[in-house]
């Protein structure tokens, strides 16, 4: 992933190049993000059973048709929670008051960076699984399809994400700090057609 391009994409530049001053700002914000973020991740592997309307992941049950479809051929899943930590939020609060243009760019840069770190991590998981003869699906998060945001709390609890990496949710199930993602990565057995 090209972090500069991805940040620009988040800022609405689709295909077109940002102007030099914006490019400079993007570079500055990306370096601030790298410096201020404290990337932490917790994850665990669980067995998976799916039915049409629900999914069992370890001891958790999710009522979701879309997740069930996404995981239909999976026997296991990695459930994860990753965060860039509180310092990025502090920086965003500060810039929200003192420099709104930089705030918007930092917002985009930190989102891009979190996705980048997650991709990196998930590639590692995929590689490990491949060694075991398994393949992995793309990340699936609460809020996608019909998987309710309300299940954020259970996901955090089962991973002890509060205690281990300092993540919580608000009453409306927004993850805190804001640059935090939870996701489910389905693991399925490699079939012959996958190899082809």
């Amino acid at each position, binding site marked *: 992933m090209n972090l500069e391009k991805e940040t620009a994409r988040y*800022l*609405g*530049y689709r295909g077109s190049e*940002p*102007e030099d*001053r*914006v490019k400079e*700002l993007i570079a500055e914000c990306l370096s601030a993000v790298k410096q201020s973020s*404290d990337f932490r991740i917790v994850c*665990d*592997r669980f067995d998976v059973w799916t039915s049409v309307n629900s999914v069992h992941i*370890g*001891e*958790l049950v999710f009522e979701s048709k879309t997740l069930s479809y996404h995981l239909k051929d999976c026997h296991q899943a990695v459930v994860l929670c990753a965060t860039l*930590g*509180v*310092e990025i*939020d*502090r920086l*965003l*609060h*500060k810039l*929200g*008051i*003192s*420099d*709104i*243009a930089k*705030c*918007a*760019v930092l*917002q985009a840069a930190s989102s891009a960076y979190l996705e980048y770190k997650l991709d990196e991590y998930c590639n590692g998981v995929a590689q490990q699984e491949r060694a075991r003869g398994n393949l992995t699906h793309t990340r699936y998060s609460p*809020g996608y399809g019909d998987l309710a*945001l*309300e299940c954020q709390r*259970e996901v955090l*609890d*089962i991973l002890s994400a*509060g*205690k281990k*990496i*300092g993540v*919580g*949710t*608000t*009453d*409306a*199930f*927004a993850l*805190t*700090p*804001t640059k935090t993602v939870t996701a489910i990565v389905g693991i399925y057995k490699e079939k012959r057609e996958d190899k082809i």
Partner: protein
Amino acid sequence: MTFEKALKEKRLFFDGAMGTMLQARGLALTELPEALNIKSPEVIEDIHDLYIKAGCDIIKTNSFGANSIKLHGTGLDSYEITRAAISVAKKAASRSDKKVYVAADFGPTGKLLMPIGDLSFELAYDAYAQALRAAQEEGADLILFETFSDTYELKAAVLAAKENTNLPIVCTVMADENGKLLTGAPVEGVAAMLEGLGVCAVGLNCGIGPTEMQPIAKRIFDATSLPVVVNPNAGLPATDRNGRTYYDITARQFALSTTEIAEYANILGGCCGTTPEYIKALIDKAENIPLPPEHEFTKTVVTSGSSAVVLGEGTVIIGERINPTGKPLFKQALRENNIEYILKEGIAQQESGAHILDVNVGLPDIDEKSMLPFVVERLQGVTSLPLQLDTSDAVALERALRTVNGKPLINSVNGKKESLQSFLPLAKKYGGVVVALALDEKGIPDTVEGRVEIAKRIIAEAEKIGIKKRDILIDLLTLTISTGSSAKVTLDGIREIKKLGVGTILGVSNISFGLPLRENINSAFLSMAIEAGLDAAIMNPSSKAMMDSYHSAMALCGYDKNCQNYIERFSDTANEKKPVKPQNTGIEQAIKTGLCESARSAATELLQKEEPMSIVQHRLVPALDEVGALFEKGKMFLPQLLMSAEAAQAAFDQIKAHILLNGGEPVKKSKIVIATVKGDIHDIGKNIVKVLLDNYGYNVVDLGKDVSPETVVQRAIEEKAEIVALSALMTTTLPAMEQTIKLVKEKIPHCKTIVGGAVLTPEYAEKIGADAYAKDATEAVRCCRELIG
């Protein structure tokens, strides 16, 4: 023997993990361990028994999650759970031949406090209060707060314990290998805050194993006079072949490594992964190691939620700009509740190099009792600097002392009896560092001796109620030299005061009052005061001359190791890097290209020859309109739009200041109240809309994020708002938006509503009764113009 007595006299051992033992007995991850205190107390009792048999002195009750927030929705009650947890622990303890202490154990709420999360300080306090009363009533020997990773939440918990029990309090936090909590606070700062709050021991638990904990434990030992507690995990977590987590060191290794920490810690024990076997091995190994020597920590430390400032190694800078005295714009901001103005002052001072921020919001027509804590709360959301609470109102001070995260400075007490009686007990209870002015009922003595006399009296009064010398800074007061007095009294006084074993602080700029080119005198005086050993200078960090002097004097006096800070400050100048000069482009062009400095200087120039309102109407607004149109057509992008907005704001601020200073009526269009709805903590979209509305001269009252429908309506009524603008970013907060609109319609039917946010559609906006939907900030401006002009 009470726990506090035992703590001083002998080495004590905590038990090990409860969770590890319960999981080994088949407790599911989704089950609440605390429920077992009622459902199967025999299981818990059995675990306590095993630890007691292993030889521990203190057992932790099975009530880690027994706070009302964690138990919300589980059907369990924190009071009942805690009672049961203590009762079962006491039962096990009573069977032991030796004295076993029962520690009522509480962990964090699992929610993050404002401003990162949505939990208020008061609700965090309330979450523990009930369970703590149960601990007291049921006869716990001590309170243990453990595994905390946020000083603010820990402060709420400790205050709740102080105000609802009379039990000794022990706190252990979870730090990483760098000695920082997840919220960024260094352990030294945590120890300073907790010792100030009056806990009886501090330390570490969880997160890391004994090997990693050793250097961090030493850092805590070196930063406090309190006994240190260490409860490490059984090493670091690892995953076995089946994907199950385990901890990677054996009981023997655990005992060896933990024993190595015994020279810094009075209490040793275990956390995740440890079992009675680990604790027994540890006790066998460490039992006869003598206690660490009692030691007195003498440094002055002030802290915020994420940083600590140690005084006494040169001079620290306390920014003085958050103070309405002599500042018409600041006064206006205070009266209009314009909190952004105040926050910007704080941010600017931090960026100019302040180490601490003074906060003074005292004005005759301002309710300081609510304003001071409010400003403190908001300020600590945007700056990492410790704060100095500057007030003469004891109620305002106490409220701010509760609200402030960390250990603040308190500015100030003086030698007057009334001042000492009302302020010192507050400093003692909340653990601040007291600034003490060398004046009393008779005024400011002329001589060094006279001022030192008062200082001695204040120190004696403070020590009487248990405030240590390290928590006192004496302000000898700077009198202006323009009336004939000499700075020597103050400078000699600094040297004398330091002999008393307390620190010194000064408001530097008073020295030049009444003289021309004050910065000359201020800078020279600052250098002399640094040389004399001044610990803290209250000054304006945006004064270049004074900051230049500061860095030079610090380097000259040897406080700036290898002149690093000096070189950093002046290397740009040395490389001849010229500052960006404002381009002379005209205000419209400056706004369109987003150049703040150019826009500001163009505005200043125009104000000489053009009416302020004409500049706004004929230059600013058309330039903004043009930018907005380009943005809507996709020819300009968000960062550029916002740079233009910043430039327009810079020009607008200049115009507003000009009007105010020349006695004109402030530029104000209709009022708009803006907020992110209850439950939603994403506020960048709302902030962008606010900046653009500001640009167009609307009087925008920003209520922030996570704002309840009641607050929105109440404030809209108070402010006589014509529009309420609401933002929601998540599907789960749309109902709150609907409720807010309903309440607005009901209570203030003439008030219009505008909504926006990622998950909204025009159809949904109409369905919930909003008067307008804006897909972005430029559209929000257009909607407001259409609705109210």
